[in-house]
Every structure is written in structure tokens, then in C-alpha cells.
């Protein structure tokens, strides 16, 4: 065996050109399907440990209040209660810093209140007891004296002089002087001279838009089971999109050495960005350390709504100028996002995504991150982008209507292409927006007749996509099967995609590969499953790890044949002699090499560790038909088509699933979903009855078209597909409503009462 086997592999990310795939692009059954249809799959709340305690969290009923006195003694005295924790039981070494620099402090302050409760639902204490019922009873015995403070929950109100200050000193240096202390971060970008551009326009439309906070709405509430000893060593089982991140945060908040906490990701019952967070895990571990027993902590649905990540709400001003021929001459946007009682609302993404679909000479965008007395916002599928698309694509539609232009032709005329300087700075490599628009124009849906009362809406959408730190390990078994260890939790069928890519490279059947989401003790660091990065980055790493194993397999064949490794090819799962040695030896199948690997140099594995940076940006065009009931104000989506660029669809069925799921969430955001706060600053609808996500009878079938414009930054051309699909629906539906009923809704959701108000104004105007 040559030492050469262990030289690090080059981390080339370049697209390798079109090829015929054997396995990639097929639609096999997912490897975890059997477990998930039989009830065997284990999610966050499905783990039990000997001697396990059950925990519950006491939460503030006030939007903003100073905690004057907190007495847990009666709860501690209740029979069956084994531990109570408050902020005093967490690290004192986590330092406050302005903006998002002090993110660990922000997380600590969010998961257990310090001096003040900052929103309705903010945690103030937690209990572990022998049964869930005793834990709940114990919460009632905790005495908290609050001094109620003035509160603010609306983004525009929170920026006004005299608004209650959530936290002095939270603003970072990006914020211009003279702003209210609740404005904590500021962004501006763009190029050209927008005023000169507006002067060239035949029509300029300027409008104000708002979107409400919506929740990711995963059906599985946050859940974990933690064990932490006084020796500082612990085990944690939890539902998360990123267990290395959970490990890192828990270690910091509890003064542990990171490696001493082993975190295992459970099956995850939906995340959509909302489980890129840490809420309950450090609490369970702190309780466990105090009680000396494993502690299980499961949120109720009301807790999920009150205290976990809704998306930011937004207040936006958009101004766009257009010539009579449809050319956009200039575009400008101001985006104010509230992200709850902490910095971090994704206003820079909103600003940067807003005009990313278009080739613009003059563009400028400004963003404000504003704090209010609401829960800390969390990422939600293309965080920040859908609200921008709602505002911008609504104005473009209005311009098309007033100038009598076709909405797809106008978008094609202005579409960003390879070589376009993006509104947010970089120059695009090969991208697929034009191809999605052309496919939408050619789709039968676009030409289908509409019934009376129906309207059709078009919208485009954009998301960056992401790479990030990634480790993958692949181990071959003696019988020639392969285990692939990835570190990105499978939130939508990614194990099937990884197995397909590994099978493609190794040349063995899909069924002979088992993909496992490894725990933090079994693999190198992996960033969270976010940014649509899994199929791109873990996929790239899987391909590279498989090639690393293939290189070693070729070396073993070369050693056996006594020829140079460069003279050995890998074809259809076999080593074959090539060049001058072609035909000298019979092909050597993978399983023949692994059968004797112990004697020929030891076990054969492949690895890849890197931070891929070639995630290709993603575009989509959606077509929707909506029907507005003029008597009730109810809007019904009657036909929906998603056209999106996937780069290369590894498992097309699960790509379609991402398209459909994003569209459905966008429909909910557009029509039904919103956080409703009362005058008292309390959330009025913390349950699925009053926060209504789309149900089966609300939706039509959702048609999909997968466009494949290869990503130049992935060997097979893969682009992430998870997030972009939620960007177009908000505007597409608003545009359909406008075309159906002649009313332009500028505030989401487009609930019946709002539609009726607009219809009434329409009648008054007539």
C-alpha cells in the first residue's frame, strides 16, 4: 500500500460538464421510508432514558416587565420535584456585545430571562420532576413579582421617538446617529444613480407594503433529552437542524468543554429554519446537572408559538421606474424588519434579495433591524427574501398592468443573466432565471383560460443558497456495501440524495449504501442544515469522500497487478487496467477488493472536510390562479405551478416536494397566517386553531417544472432547492387577487376582512 493514499484530496468544486448518470436523477424509495410509515422513526420526544425526569418551563405573561422577585422555594419543596433552575444556573462568562456580535449572550438572555422579561412567553424558570404532571403543578408554585413596563410590538412604532426602549446599547456601529435605540443594525447597498434612473422612466410607482410575522409551523414541537454530570460530561438528544451548533451553544452557556458534550440529532419533524436555534437544550442540561438524572423537555404548541422563532415582520417602501417598453430604469427599497427583543432580523437579506432578479443600472436598498417586545425571530426558509419579493413583484405587476405589458415579457426583458452585476454586488456566473421564465411562458397553465372571478398572478423569486463547513466520512464494508456518515440532519429526504451520489461514484447499487446522520462524536464539524446547503455541500462532500475511497480502491488494484495507480481506471464499480495495460487483467469489482482489504493494507474509507463556496444562486417563477369571493372576501387558490432551477435534480421527486412545500407555506403566509398581538402585548393566537396553516382542503395540486441550469460550483451542477420556492408565492397571489378582483392588497395576510375593505373602497370610488 502506498502512503500516497492518505494525501489530502484537492477540493475542486467546479462543474464537470454534462454526463450520463446511472443513478443520479432516478427516484428510488427513501432509506428511512419504512421507519417513518410504521411509527418506528424516533423524533425529538421519542427518546426515553432510565431514571428520566420531565421538565417544564415557567414563562412571562407580560410583554415587558422587570422581574422584581423570583421565589422558587415552594416549587422545590413539592414532592417529586428534583431541580429548579433560573438564570443563576447558567454561565456568568457569556459576554454582552452590541448587534449580533454577542449572539451567545442573546441566546442565553432569550432562553432564560435575566433582569427583565422581554416578551409574552419569555422563560423565567424551569422545573424537573418525576412526572410531567408534577412538573406542571410545580410551575404554579413559583412566585414571580413583575413590575410591568411599557411595551411595543409594531416595527414602525418601535422606531418612533418616545417608543419604549427594549435594551440600551444593543445597537452596533452600522446604525446612523439619531436613530431610536431600538434600531440596532443598518444596511445599505446598490449601484448607479437612482434619481437619474427615475428621471428616465415613463412611469414611476412608489408604494408601502407590510407583512406580518409568520411561524415556520413545523408540526413537531421542540424536544430534547439531556444528561449532564457534575464531571462536565454530557449527552444530548434533540430535534435540530444542526447538532454541532447546539453542542457549541450549550457548551458556552453551561461552561463546558465542547467535546465533552456529545449531541445526537433525532429525526426532525420539520424545521424550515426554525430549528437552527437553541431554546430548551441548555435548560434540560442545567436541570440534569442539578438533579443528577436525565431530563426530558418537550415544548407545548403554545410555547412553540410564544417563544420560538417566528419570522420577522416587515414595513417596506418600494419605488420602481419603468419605460413604456418595459425597461426598468431604477429601483429603490427601504426595508424595516422587527426581529423581536434581540438584534438579528434578516433585513440585509431582504435588501439584498429585493432586486436580485433584475439587471438594473440604478438600484439602491436600505435596511433597518428593529427590536420590539416579541420573541426572537428565527430563520424561515429564505429568511428575509419572501417579504421583499412580495413588495417588489407587486409593484412590477402594477407597472405592467398600467403600461399594458405582459408580466413574463417584462421580467424577461429585465432578467438578470450570466454577467449581470447583481443588485447586491457580485457579478452572476451562469444562472437560470431566464430559463424559468421561458419555461413558465411555455407552460400550458400560462395560456389556460380563466373563469369569471379568477385572476392570474406571476412572480419571480431569488435566494442566495449557501455552502458552509462540511465533513463527510464513507466506510466500505468487507462485503462491498458502504456506510456514509453525514452531519447535516435530514430535513426532507437528503439521505436518499446522498446515497444516490455515493452510488454514482462508487458504481454500486443504491440499496447497498446506508447513510447515517452521525452524532457530534463520530464526525468532524458540520454547519447547520440551512441555506439550502445540504444537497449542495454535503452532496459535494459525499462525492469527494466516495472518490477518496475510489482512489484507495484503485491503489489496491494497482498493487495487486503490480502496475502504476495512474494506469487503473474505475468503471461501473470495478477497477480496470487502462492505457498500456488495458486488457491485461480482468476487471476487479469493489467487493473483491474489500473482501481482502484487511490483508492488503487495512480498512478502506473516504473522507472529505472543507468549506465549499460555490453554492449557486437560485431563481424561480411561479404562476397562480386565484378566485376571490366578492361577498365573503375569501380567496381560493385554484391552480398553482412552480418553475424553479435546481441545477441538477439528484432525486427529482424530493426536489418537487421542496417546490410544493415552499409554495404551500407561501400560500399560508399570503392568505391566512399572522401573529396577532393584543393591546396588552400578548400573542392572541398561539395555537393551530387560530394560527391557521393551509390544510389539505385549502389547496389544489401543485404542479412543478424542474429547470436544470448547472451550478458552476458543483461537480454535478447541483443548486440548493429548499428555500427559493417560498419567495414568489406572496406576490404571485397578490397579483392574482389584483387581476381577479381589481384590488391591490399591500398588507399581508390578505385575509377576507382586508379584501372586503378594499372591495368596499373600490365600490366607493366607482
Amino acid at each position, binding site marked *: 500500500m502506498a502512503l500516497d493514499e492518505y494525501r489530502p484530496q484537492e477540493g475542486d468544486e467546479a462543474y464537470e460538464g454534462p454526463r450520463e448518470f446511472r443513478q443520479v436523477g432516478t427516484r428510488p424509495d427513501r432509506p428511512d421510508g419504512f421507519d417513518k410509515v410504521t411509527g418506528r422513526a424516533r423524533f425529538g420526544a421519542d427518546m426515553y432514558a432510565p431514571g428520566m425526569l420531565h421538565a417544564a418551563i415557567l414563562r412571562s405573561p407580560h410583554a415587558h416587565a422587570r422581574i422584581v422577585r423570583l421565589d422558587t422555594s415552594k416549587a422545590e419543596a413539592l414532592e417529586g420535584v428534583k431541580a429548579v433552575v433560573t438564570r443563576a444556573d447558567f454561565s456568568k462568562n457569556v459576554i454582552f456585545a452590541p448587534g449580533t456580535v454577542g449572539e451567545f449572550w442573546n441566546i442565553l438572555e432569550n432562553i432564560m430571562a435575566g433582569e427583565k422579561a422581554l416578551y409574552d412567553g419569555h422563560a423565567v424558570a424551569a422545573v424537573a420532576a418525576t412526572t410531567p404532571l408534577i412538573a406542571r403543578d410545580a410551575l404554579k408554585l413559583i412566585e414571580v413579582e413583575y413590575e410591568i413596563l411599557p411595551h411595543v410590538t409594531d416595527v414602525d412604532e418601535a422606531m418612533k421617538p418616545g417608543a419604549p426602549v427594549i435594551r440600551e446599547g444593543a445597537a452596533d456601529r452600522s446604525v446612523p446617529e439619531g436613530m431610536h435605540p431600538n434600531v440596532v443594525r443598518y444596511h445599505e447597498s446598490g449601484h448607479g444613480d437612482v434619481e437619474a434612473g427615475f428621471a428616465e422612466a415613463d412611469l414611476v410607482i412608489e408604494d408601502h407594503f407590510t407583512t406580518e410575522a409568520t411561524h415556520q409551523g413545523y*408540526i413537531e414541537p421542540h424536544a430534547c433529552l439531556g444528561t449532564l454530570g457534575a464531571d462536565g460530561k454530557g449527552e444530548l438528544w434533540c430535534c435540530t437542524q444542526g447538532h454541532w451548533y447546539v453542542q457549541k451553544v450549550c457548551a458556552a452557556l453551561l461552561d463546558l468543554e465542547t467535546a465533552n458534550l456529545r449531541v445526537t440529532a433525532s429525526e426532525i419533524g420539520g424545521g424550515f429554519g426554525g430549528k437552527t436555534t437553541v431554546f430548551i437544550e441548555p435548560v434540560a442540561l442545567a436541570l440534569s446537572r442539578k438533579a443528577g438524572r436525565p431530563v426530558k423537555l418537550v415544548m407545548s*404548541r403554545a410555547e412553540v408559538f410564544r417563544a420560538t422563532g417566528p419570522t420577522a415582520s416587515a414595513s417596506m417602501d418600494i419605488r420602481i421606474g419603468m419605460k413604456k417598453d418595459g425597461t426598468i430604469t431604477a429601483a429603490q427599497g427601504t426595508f424595516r424588519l422587527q426581529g423581536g427583543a434581540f438584534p438579528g432580523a434578516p433585513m440585509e437579506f431582504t435588501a439584498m434579495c429585493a432586486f436580485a432578479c433584475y439587471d438594473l443600472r440604478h438600484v439602491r436598498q436600505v435596511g433597518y433591524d428593529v427590536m420590539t417586545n416579541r420573541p426572537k425571530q428565527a430563520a424561515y426558509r429564505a429568511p428575509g427574501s419572501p417579504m421583499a419579493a412580495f413588495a417588489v413583484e407587486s409593484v412590477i405587476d402594477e407597472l405592467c398592468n398600467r403600461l399594458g405589458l405582459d408580466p413574463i415579457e417584462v421580467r424577461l426583458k429585465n432578467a438578470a443573466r450570466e454577467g449581470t452585476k447583481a443588485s447586491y454586488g457580485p457579478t452572476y456566473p451562469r444562472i437560470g432565471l431566464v430559463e424559468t421564465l421561458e419555461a413558465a411562458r411555455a407552460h400550458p397553465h400560462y395560456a389556460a383560460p380563466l373563469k369569471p372571478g379568477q385572476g392570474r398572478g406571476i412572480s419571480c423569486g431569488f435566494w442566495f443558497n449557501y455552502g458552509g463547513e462540511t465533513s463527510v466520512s464513507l466506510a466500505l464494508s468487507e462485503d462491498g456495501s458502504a456506510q456514509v456518515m453525514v452531519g447535516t440532519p435530514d430535513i*426532507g429526504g437528503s439521505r436518499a440524495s446522498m446515497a444516490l451520489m455515493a452510488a454514482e461514484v462508487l458504481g454500486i447499487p443504491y440499496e447497498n449504501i446506508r447513510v447515517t446522520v452521525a452524532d457530534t462524536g463520530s464526525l468532524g464539524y458540520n454547519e447547520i442544515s440551512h441555506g439550502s446547503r445540504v444537497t449542495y455541500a454535503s452532496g459535494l462532500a459525499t462525492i469527494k469522500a466516495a472518490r477518496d475511497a475510489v482512489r484507495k480502491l484503485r491503489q489496491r488494484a494497482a498493487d495487486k497487478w503490480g502496475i502504476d495507480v495512474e494506469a487503473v481506471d474505475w468503471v461501473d464499480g470495478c477497477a480496470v487496467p487502462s492505457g498500456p495495460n488495458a486488457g491485461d487483467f480482468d476487471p476487479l469489482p469493489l467487493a473483491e477488493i474489500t473482501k481482502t482489504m484487511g490483508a492488503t493494507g487495512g480498512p478502506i474509507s473516504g473522507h472529505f472536510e472543507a468549506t465549499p463556496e460555490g453554492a449557486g444562486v437560485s431563481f424561480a417563477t411561479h404562476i397562480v390562479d386565484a378566485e376571490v369571493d366578492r361577498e365573503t372576501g375569501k380567496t381560493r387558490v385554484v391552480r398553482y405551478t412552480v418553475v424553479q432551477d435546481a441545477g441538477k435534480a439528484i432525486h427529482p421527486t424530493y426536489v418537487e416536494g421542496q417546490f410544493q412545500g415552499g409554495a404551500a407555506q407561501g400560500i399560508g403566509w399570503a392568505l391566512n397566517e399572522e401573529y396577532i398581538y393584543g393591546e396588552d402585548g400578548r400573542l392572541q393566537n398561539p395555537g393551530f386553531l387560530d394560527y391557521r396553516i393551509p390544510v389539505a382542503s385549502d389547496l389544489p395540486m401543485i404542479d412543478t417544472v424542474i429547470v436544470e441550469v448547472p451550478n458552476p460550483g458543483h461537480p454535478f451542477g447541483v443548486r440548493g432547492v429548499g428555500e427559493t420556492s417560498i419567495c414568489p408565492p406572496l406576490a404571485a397571489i397578490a397579483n392574482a387577487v389584483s387581476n381577479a378582483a381589481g384590488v391591490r392588497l399591500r398588507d399581508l395576510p390578505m385575509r377576507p376582512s382586508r379584501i372586503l375593505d378594499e372591495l368596499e373602497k373600490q365600490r366607493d370610488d366607482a
Partner: protein
Amino acid sequence: MTKIHVTARINGDEVEFLCDPRETMLDVLRDRLGLIGAKEGCGTGDCGACSITLDGRLVCSCLMLGVEAEGREIGTVEGIAEGENLHPLQRKFIEHAALQCGFCTPGILVAAKNLLERNPDPSEEEVRYWLAGNLCRCTGYDKIIRAVLDAAAEMREAS
């Protein structure tokens, strides 16, 4: 609080358990009997992830008390397959990729099976309204509806 002794039949097997009168059937299934297939998504009967059958009727086990199971017949997702043979609905859910995260899947399978026992030839609209009490946040329901209709067609052909 004194616990109550309950005898019930679950997926065909006689089962005995002690439970607190405040405990839900869902908690009994999961925490006392180790039947973790039923999930708690809301605890208020709005999401359907905890769906079971009670004497053949579809119910949310989070809205039922454990003590109410006395003498009753209960069906859960664990009882849908026959030994190693998956029910057609289970096979079609895998085939159509009618699940992404899979958390709502047990409840949807219990509900869909109950529908097909009453109506072997449902229309798309009937499937959509029957499953309106089962929330799925991942799929947009498209592939779920197709899987149920396909399973129904296969079962009609087989019978």
C-alpha cells in the same frame, strides 16, 4: 393522585395499565406503553398527528383520557402493517414520497386507512376534506393526496 387500572385492546392485543385520571390517551400510549408512533403536535386536537381509532372511529388521542380506554378497542399506526407486509397506504406513501419529515405521517396513515374502510373509492375532494384535520407543513399535500388515491385504486383492484 391515585392511579386507575385500565384494560383495553390495542392493535389486537390485550393491554393493562395504570394511569393518572388527568393523563391523555396519547401520553398513556407513548409514555406508559411505548407506542411512540402517535405524535403530539399540538395537544389541542388541531393537528391530527396523534390520530388513533377508538372502536373503529377516528379520534385525536390528545383529546381522550387514558381512563376512557377501559374495555375499548384502539388502533394505532403500529397496527397498520401485517407483520412484515406493509399496508398499501404505507407502500404508496414511500413510493410517492408523500412524506418529507415524516412527523405527521402516522396520523395521516391512521386517518387515511379509516377513510378507505368507509369509502373505498373517494374523490380527490373527499380525500382532501377527510384529511383536513391532519396538518402537514412539508409537502403541500399534493403527494399525500396522490398516494391515498393510488392506494385506494390498488386496494379496489385487489378486492
